[in-house]
């Protein structure tokens, strides 16, 4: 029984990680039809921001939850102005340009931080659950994923900014008719997506050994989660993160991590073959 609970937490945790690492990508893809292949490096940048600021004496929660998103959001603004804005509407070109950005960031971070693995210790101690030890930090990650998902849903659904953003995605001209410049809406959306990536990077930092190539571990999973989720930002990411998290974790527990990862990928292919516009393209049309 205790073991079942431990396994359950692990599965929730896996889903939560997928939600966290794909939220930023989902916002940018769902709202702007831009696929940011440098998303993994955005996460890594968030991780470095958290680690460096923490090592410089900033409180760890402040570093993870405030500094990391801020740094990456500012960086996102630069990227949007310098690269993305020239390529709106050209999906493949944005993918290629951001792939280039991904390589360039990886290289730049190597030059700046060196290729050593760094990290910070988790700020929350483990606790005992029956016969088992559970990581308190895993629960924190699950909590953060819930906060991100609910927050995103509410922001898009209930706030004025969310409404404008959704309007701009449907019809850019209408937004400008209302007096909002679509260019600014895009900029802010991209910054918000970047901030989410930074947040995820910050939250994940204490769990992993971070190095400039770490982003590669995330991007494929985040990318698959978002595309398989389809166009609806929150429900899509949640649905596919749920599916993939359960599958990969179940296979990992029953067999080996390699099989777990391959199972996830195989399911992704089958899913996209059957539902070529993603889960929400089929089942949750038009929802947030």
């Amino acid at each position, binding site marked *: 029984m205790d073991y079942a609970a431990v396994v359950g937490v692990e599965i929730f945790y896996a889903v939560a990680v997928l939600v966290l690492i794909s939220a930023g990508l989902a916002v940018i893809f769902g709202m702007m039809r831009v696929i940011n292949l440098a998303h993994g490096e955005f996460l890594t940048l968030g991780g470095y921001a958290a680690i460096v600021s923490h090592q410089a004496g900033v409180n760890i929660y402040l570093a993870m939850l405030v500094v990391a998103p801020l740094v990456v959001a500012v960086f996102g603004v630069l990227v949007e102005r310098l690269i993305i804005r020239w390529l709106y509407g050209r999906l493949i070109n944005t993918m290629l340009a951001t792939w280039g950005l991904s390589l*360039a960031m*990886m290289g730049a971070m190597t030059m700046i931080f060196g290729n050593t693995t760094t990290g910070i210790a988790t700020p929350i101690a483990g606790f005992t659950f029956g016969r088992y030890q559970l990581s308190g930090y895993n629960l924190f990650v699950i909590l953060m994923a819930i906060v991100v998902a609910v927050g995103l849903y509410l922001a898009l659904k209930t706030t004025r900014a969310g409404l404008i953003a959704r309007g701009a995605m449907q019809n850019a001209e209408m937004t400008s008719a209302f007096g909002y410049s679509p260019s600014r809406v895009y900029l802010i959306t991209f910054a918000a997506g970047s901030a989410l990536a930074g947040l995820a990077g910050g939250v994940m930092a204490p769990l992993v050994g971070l190095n400039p190539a770490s982003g590669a571990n995330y991007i494929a999973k985040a*990318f698959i989660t978002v*595309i398989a989720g389809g166009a609806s930002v929150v429900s899509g990411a949640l649905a596919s993160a749920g599916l993939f998290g359960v599958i990969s974790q179940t296979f990992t527990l029953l067999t080996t991590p390699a099989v777990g990862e391959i199972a996830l990928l195989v399911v992704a292919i089958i899913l996209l*073959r059957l539902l070529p516009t993603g889960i929400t393209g089929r089942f949750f049309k038009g929802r947030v």
Partner: protein
Amino acid sequence: MFARDVLPALIIGVPAMFVLPMLFDAYTLTVLTAYALLALSLGFIWGFAGILCFGQAAFFGLGAYSFAIAALNMGSAWGPFFIAILVPAVFAAVFGALLFYGRLSDVYLAVVTLVMTLILFKFMNSSAGEIYKLGDARLGGYNGIPGFETLTIPWDPGEYLYDESLFYFAFGLLVLVYILLRVLLKMPFGRALVGIRENEQRAELMGYDIRLMKTIAFSIGAAIAGLAGCLFANWAEIVTPALFSLGQSAEIIIWVIVGGAGTLLGPVVGAAILGYTKFLLGQQSLIDNTFVLGVILILAVLLLPQGIFPSLVRLWHWLLARLPSAAPLRRRSGRSRRDKDV
């Protein structure tokens, strides 16, 4: 067709084959040739059939692995040479049919091909155990497969193709594949492929079975990538899962886009230049190599979205049009705009 497509390739290709080894090391040229062939494979399916495959490295790797595994089992290398072309082609035909008959395109196609590459990559990486064995060949996991037979001169089995002879062989194949592709593109099938790239719906309404045609094109591309993989295996004498990696896939796309998608020569030139650049960058440690490649890709997408080669062609026509005797030439430049298959 001969005068316009075959002859120029021969006029440039054959002398190049003999001049290049005097300027550069043959072993560097050989791997650049394999890369060029790989770029050509993606240049064909992306530039002419409109299939953006994010996982062309999968076929490259499959070709190399098929060769290595077959060579270990068969003990000779010419049978494996053909197997290395056939296996990726068949794999791509099956996989392509799965995708194209399911009407996947654009981003979704990109994702699925990428995922397929990841699967192969992860599988090969975790095949270190003893159970992963095909005949006499252990897959070897992360460390790959070393120690297989390589190609010999067909009429003299004792004489290995290596160094300069391997380069001549590889380069000859590159020229041959290039010519075959040009001829193919002039044939109704090739023209229809371009039609599909331009407008799938219209091609369908004309009565072309685009699912079948894309599958065939995909398979041809995979066969060429497999050939490139086979040459690579012969050159490196080891195959590792890195051949399937995302980085490898990224590089192929970079070669094609920098060289110029929509042309055949562009990807070849792109691969040669960038492959050599990477090699040169390895001899210095001031600036990170990955950084340079990334910046090149960003700049290429932003500034030269059509690629270096078509941009040069345009510049050439622009210059010609401004020469005093430009009048007759101007008309020709109009013609060459449509000849996208440079």
